[in-house]
Each structure stands twice: as C-alpha cells, then as structure tokens.
C-alpha cells in the first residue's frame, strides 16, 4: 500500500461526498479567510500610515523650543538657521519654523472655515515638509526678512476658493489678515478637506500678527537621508544643549522616523494578535473536521472491516483516513486563501484605495496551519478506525 494509492482513494471519497466534503471544509475556509483578511487589513492600515508619513516627509527631526525671553527666542532662530545651513550642511538639507494654526480663509465671496492648516515657515518650509511648487514662486528669503504679506497655497484651497481662476497675484484673507498668493503647491494628499492639500504657508515673521508673539516655538530640521538621522540628532542636541541653559528655557527633540517605526511595530503586533484571534476560527474548523471524520468512521465501519479482512494493516487504514482529513483541510485552506485574496483586494481598494495583497508569510502559515489541523484532528478518528476488529466491523451495517 503506497502513498499514491492512499491519495487516489482519498480523492475518490472526497469526490463521492462533494457536499459533505465542502461542509467539512467550511470551518477551515472561514478560518483561513478571516486570518488572511484580518492580517491584511492591518497590513493595509500599516501601509496607509507609512504612506501618510511619507507624504508628510520622512527624515525629519522636530524641535520644540520654549524660551522665557522673546528676544532669546528670536535670536535662537538665527543661530539655529546658521548652524544647520553652514555647519551641518553635510547632514541636514534645511530647517524651517513649524508653527501652525487654523482659522477662516476667505477670498471674494468664498470662505473655508477652520479646516485648513496654516503654517508659519521660511523659504525652506516646502523642502522640509515635502511640498512641491506647481506655479508661481515659493516663500523667499526676502519675504521672511521683510515679513511680507504673501502665502503659498495648497491644491484644496485653490479648488475651493478659485476654481479655474488663476490664484497667483490674488489676495486672500486669513482671519482678516491680507495675504498675496505668490505660489501654488502640487496636490499630494488627494485635494480633500483637512488633508495636507488644505494648507497655506506664510513667512513665520508674520507670527506677531497671526499668533500674537514673536517667539519661534517649533522647528523642523530635514536630514539629507535616513542614515544621517542619528548623527544629525546628536549634533542638534549638543548644539541646543550648549546654547540653552536652564535659566533661558528648554527644548525637546523628536526623531520623526522613530515615531513612524514605533507605529509600524504597534500595528505589526496588533496584526499578530488579530491573527491569533482569527486562528481560533481555524481551530474550530479543525474540530468540525474531527466531528465529520468520526461520523465517517462510524458510517464506514463495514468498509473498514472489509479492508482489514482483505489485508489492510492498521497503518494503511490510519494513512487512508489521515490523508483524507489532511486533503480536506488542505483544500479548505486553498479555498480560504483564494477568498482571503479576494477580501484583501476588496478591502484594500475600499478602505485604503491601494492594491493590497496578503503577505507571503501569512498565506503560507495559514495553509500549513490548516493542513496541520486536518492531520491533528484527523488522528483520533483514524486511530479509532484502524483499531476496529475485522469481524466486528464486518457485522456492522
């Protein structure tokens, strides 16, 4: 009795009892589908967040600064600006203030209430935050120095306030502060309300008029690449530590890449937990297989008796039943994987608008797990079948 024969026999029995075989597999199908589906949704969420961080701009260090004296705060800008752009030119590509606020933006008869983010930056703001200029010009060094009433606007603002009209040279009002639009950024976040395209940027030197203070309380420093982040962080930390003592104020540095990685780790462990929960469904599917296999053994007592009478060994009977349950669960696993792929594609499209596919490891793992379950839960019925006394089994009907 070789394995090939056992496989042929198993295929034959599964085919004869198509409906029952399908019902038996159902538990495994649902289990595998939900494991793959859940883990993939988490993976989509993760990719979504990563994408968000990438749009925001990666390789950034945020600096938050609290100075007790306004003039110290203003002087600190010049020091930091010079340090980053001269001494750190190999590590950093730019630095910009990063204060933000919100309010009403108005042009002609159109207004946008409170959804927009209003940034106060310098001529390196767009570089630091991944905005690309589409038309007009960016905030210039001169604009910053002279505190010009100018701004660059995001694509959502253009769409909402100007429609097809050219916004360059027009004047918009931020909480009644007039600002001349000098440039427009490319869309980068879907041109929707509250997105990164719902934003305007003006020289930070307007902060007295906008925020009522001359203090510069937040900066973004952009690193040249990911590998320079640690060195940049250390340098900045040392620099600020030397310049700011406890009597003047305090500062805090945040590596934004680490934030992103932490959120990656968080979703990874969350998806593991969800995967584990879903595998309980798989386990239940396994119990379903055991149940059906036990019924099968009872139903086929006579067949087992005949097989034993004409020479089947215990091993042959066990092999036959194990292959049968293993094949049922493998088949269920394959169908579950197909459904898992479909669900993942649908969810990816609907929730995150991306082509999402289950990861290879979760596909392989759930397939292996379903086979293991089929064999594991098939073992008891198989052993039970093989232990039947031939004469007793033959008398059964």
């Amino acid at each position, binding site marked *: *009795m*070789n394995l090939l*024969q056992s496989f042929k026999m198993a295929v*034959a*029995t599964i085919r*004869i009892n198509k409906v029952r075989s399908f019902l038996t597999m159902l538990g495994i199908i649902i289990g595998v589908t939900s494991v793959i589906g859940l883990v993939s949704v988490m993976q989509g969420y993760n990719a979504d967040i990563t994408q968000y961080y990438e749009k925001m701009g990666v390789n950034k260090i945020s600096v938050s600064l609290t100075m007790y004296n306004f003039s110290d705060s203003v002087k600190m800008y010049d020091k930091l600006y010079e340090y980053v752009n001269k001494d750190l030119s190999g590590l950093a590509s730019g630095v910009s203030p990063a204060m933000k606020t919100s309010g009403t933006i108005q042009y002609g008869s159109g207004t946008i209430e409170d959804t927009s983010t209003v940034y106060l930056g310098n001529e390196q703001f767009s570089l630091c935050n991944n905005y690309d200029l589409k038309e007009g010009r960016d905030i210039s060094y001169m604009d910053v120095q002279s505190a010009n009433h100018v701004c660059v606007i995001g694509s959502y603002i253009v769409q909402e306030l100007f429609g097809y009209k050219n916004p360059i040279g027009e004047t918009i009002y931020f909480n009644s502060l007039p600002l001349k639009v000098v440039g427009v950024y490319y869309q980068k976040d879907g041109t929707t309300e509250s997105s990164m395209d719902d934003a305007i940027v003006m020289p930070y030197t307007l902060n007295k008029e906008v925020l009522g203070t001359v203090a510069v309380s937040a900066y973004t420093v952009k690193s040249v690449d990911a590998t320079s982040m640690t060195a940049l962080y250390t340098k900045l930390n040392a620099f600020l530590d030397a310049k700011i003592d406890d009597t003047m104020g305090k500062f805090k540095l945040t590596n934004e890449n680490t934030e992103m990685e932490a959120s990656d780790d968080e979703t990874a462990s969350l998806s593991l937990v969800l995967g584990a929960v879903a595998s309980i469904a798989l386990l239940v599917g396994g119990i379903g297989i055991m149940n059906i296999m036990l019924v099968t053994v009872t139903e086929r007592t*006579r*067949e087992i*008796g*005949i*097989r*034993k*009478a*004409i*020479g*089947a*060994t*215990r*091993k*042959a009977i066990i092999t036959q039943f194990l292959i049968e349950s293993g094949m049922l669960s493998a088949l269920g696993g394959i169908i579950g994987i197909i459904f898992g792929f479909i669900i993942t594609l649908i969810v990816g499209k609907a929730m995150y608008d991306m082509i999402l596919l289950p990861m290879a490891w979760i596909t392989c793992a759930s397939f292996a797990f379903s086979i293991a379950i089929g064999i594991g839960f098939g073992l008891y019925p198989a052993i039970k079948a093989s232990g039947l*006394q*031939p*004469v007793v089994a*033959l008398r059964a009907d």
Partner: protein
Amino acid sequence: MLIRVKDVYKIYNEGHENEVRALDGVSLNIDYGEYVAIIGSSGSGKSTFMNILGCLDVPTRGEYFLEDVNVKELTDADLSRIRSLKVGFIFQGYNLISTLNAYENIELPLIYQNIPAHKRRDAVFEALERVGLKERYLHFPSQLSGGQQQRIAIARAIATRAPIMMADEPTGALDSKTGIQIMETLEELNKSGSTIILITHDNGIAAKAKRVVRLSDGHIISDSRGETAV
C-alpha cells in the same frame, strides 16, 4: 500441518442469559492442499469457524495454529499480513465496497499486497474472466445483480492467489449453471495447490469436496473423506 485447531470455543455473552456457544470445543486439522467442506444447518457455527480460521476473529478459549504458529502470539500487523497474503475470503454477504467499482474492488487486496499497478491489472482481468464478468468491470456493486456481486467477490479472492481459499456459501446466490462454473473454478484452484475450505449447507455442493466436516450446534459431529463423505 497447515491448520491445527485445538479445543476451540467461541462463546458470545458468556455467563449471561443470552449466552451463545457458537463453537463448543472444536478440534480439527487441515493439511496443505486439502479441499474441505464444512457443512451444517443455519446457526451451527460455520461462519464463526471460518472467521477464526481466517484470523478475522479470535477464539474465546482454545488454540489455533496456522502453519504451526499460535495466532494468539501474532501482532496485529502479522495478522494483517496473513489475511493479505495467505487467505482469500469469499464472504457469505459478498462484502464488496459500495463506493468502488468491480475493478477497484478486485484490485484492492492486491494494493494491500503491494503488487505493482501493471501486474494488478492483469490479475484483475484474469479473475474477471474466470467469473465471466469481464465486461462489467466498471459497474458499481449497486449496479450488479446479487449473483454478479457474488462473482465479483469470488474474483476478488481468486485474484489474490492466496494459498488458502475460504468460501462461505459461494454459490448461495447463483443459479445452478453459474454455481457449477464457480465450483469448477474452486476445483481448479485446488488442483493447482490451493487449500480450499468451503462452507455450505448444501449436501450436493459438499459432495465435490474430498473431505466433509459436519458441524452441529458448535460441535463437529462427523469428519469423513472420500466418496463416502456425504
């Protein structure tokens, strides 16, 4: 000696009110190449005896030596090997597997004997030819008449080329012509060296055997050879 049965009992529900002494102290020797008919009325213990001889069942008491080995001392795997290689069964109730067609039913014991596929094919068709059902090889048991099922069951036993053939009422479901054909097949097998143990309640059938053992209520009441057997 091929078969040596010493004072064998098979008692069902011993000590209870519904106790049945299916075999009540049976002793019998059968040598290689013999053709033995076991005859007796219904319920006399014939099938029970055959099950024990074929290692499908174990006696309640007593010893059974097959080729001088006490079967009590054999493992489950040994018993499977005996059933596979030494004994060909023709059961009273055909015992075909309903989900397999005629060909597959006959092939099954050969699979358990680990015979390669092409040799199995030849053996199956040869056996089908012998029982005259070659053209029915794709039919399932439910698509065959009782007599045809019986003949497939006989073909299954013949195909194994086992040295011992045990047939429990093999002609019970057959008309006299097919019955005679089957009896001729058994005789041929015996001539080519097989040991035949034939169970029947029909004196006419038993007369074909060289030796007749008569069972009654679990006892052997006569054991005779030659022309005077019946």
